[in-house]
């Protein structure tokens, strides 16, 4: 079985832009969102597939070739859904690379013991602020 798909779940600003960027680099991208409207955030250069559906339904994930995924990026607007989906990708489909966006840094503890990588906009913004503030100080 060849794992050559790059899957993005949740077509918000972050998800849509990751999908567009990866598509531009030549990846075979599939993006899933529960509403068709969300795909308007994709740029014109996006050349992958769009799937409308609830990703917590395994049928939708399998339809999006989750079994052939080399990486999955999960960016829905609910932390609980994101953790749940990352666990499904990890324990059921053994996707080799899993990235998940989390608002609540506490939830990251639920990923301990796995190779799932968490991205915290909060931590990144805080670090960025500290950097800018210190720069301004000089």
């Amino acid at each position: 079985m060849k794992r050559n798909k790059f899957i993005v779940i949740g077509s918000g600003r972050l998800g849509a832009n990751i999908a567009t960027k990866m598509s531009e680099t030549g990846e075979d991208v599939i993006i899933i969102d529960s509403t068709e409207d969300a795909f308007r955030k994709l740029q014109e250069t996006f050349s992958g597939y769009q799937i409308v559906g609830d990703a917590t339904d395994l049928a939708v994930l399998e339809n999006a070739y989750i079994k052939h995924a080399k990486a999955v990026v999960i960016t829905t607007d609910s932390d609980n859904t994101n953790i749940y989906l990352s666990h499904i990708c990890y324990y059921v489909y053994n996707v080799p690379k899993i990235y998940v966006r989390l608002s609540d840094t506490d939830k990251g503890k639920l990923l301990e013991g796995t190779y799932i990588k968490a991205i915290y906009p909060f931590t990144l913004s805080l670090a960025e602020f500290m950097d800018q503030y210190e720069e301004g100080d000089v």
Partner: protein
Amino acid sequence: MKVVITGGKHEADYIVNTLKEEHHQLIVINNDRQFAEYISTNNDIPVFPGDPTKAYTLSDAECDNADVLLALSDNDTDNYIACITAKKLFNIKRTVAKVKNPKNVELFKKLGIDSIISSTYLMAQTILNESSVENIIKTLSIEDEKIVMIEIGVEEEYHLVNQRIMDIPFPRNINISCIFRDPHVIIPKGDTRIKAEDKLIIISTPSEKEEIIDFIQKKR
């Protein structure tokens, strides 16, 4: 037992009342403030209004090392997160999740939830087991499904009615262990005659089950 009950309305209320009688240590966590107050005024137990998918709620409610956590909300994903948080961060021994989508029963099991309750799933299993249209009441699997126990009601037009067991050409691997002839229970011998309205308790193997049922139900 220390039992944490999260989410749910009627379910939570009923479980609190049932377990209270047996002197278990109960903790209730519910997102609905009004419902939390209702439980709190009617019972002398700790009640915490809050989101059970957040670690600090479970921490405030002192759920550490509980024996069981029940997740009864209407959202399958939230129930999963509450159970996993309980297991990973609070060392809670058993987790029980309610699910709306019956397909999640198998999935949650795979993901490490100990028990999963789905009313739709249970309903389907009950129908499969009972086949209530026919006169088969129950089949029960024992010893990891290597043995089945079949309970069949005998109807008047069945070919075995009024025959002696020794004269009936039964298929292989069948043992009529017991005949229930209201109000008597008969342990059958070769010369026992089968009568209409009898209930036969049969022990067999799963592979022969269909053949036996077909045989018993053959009409004259």
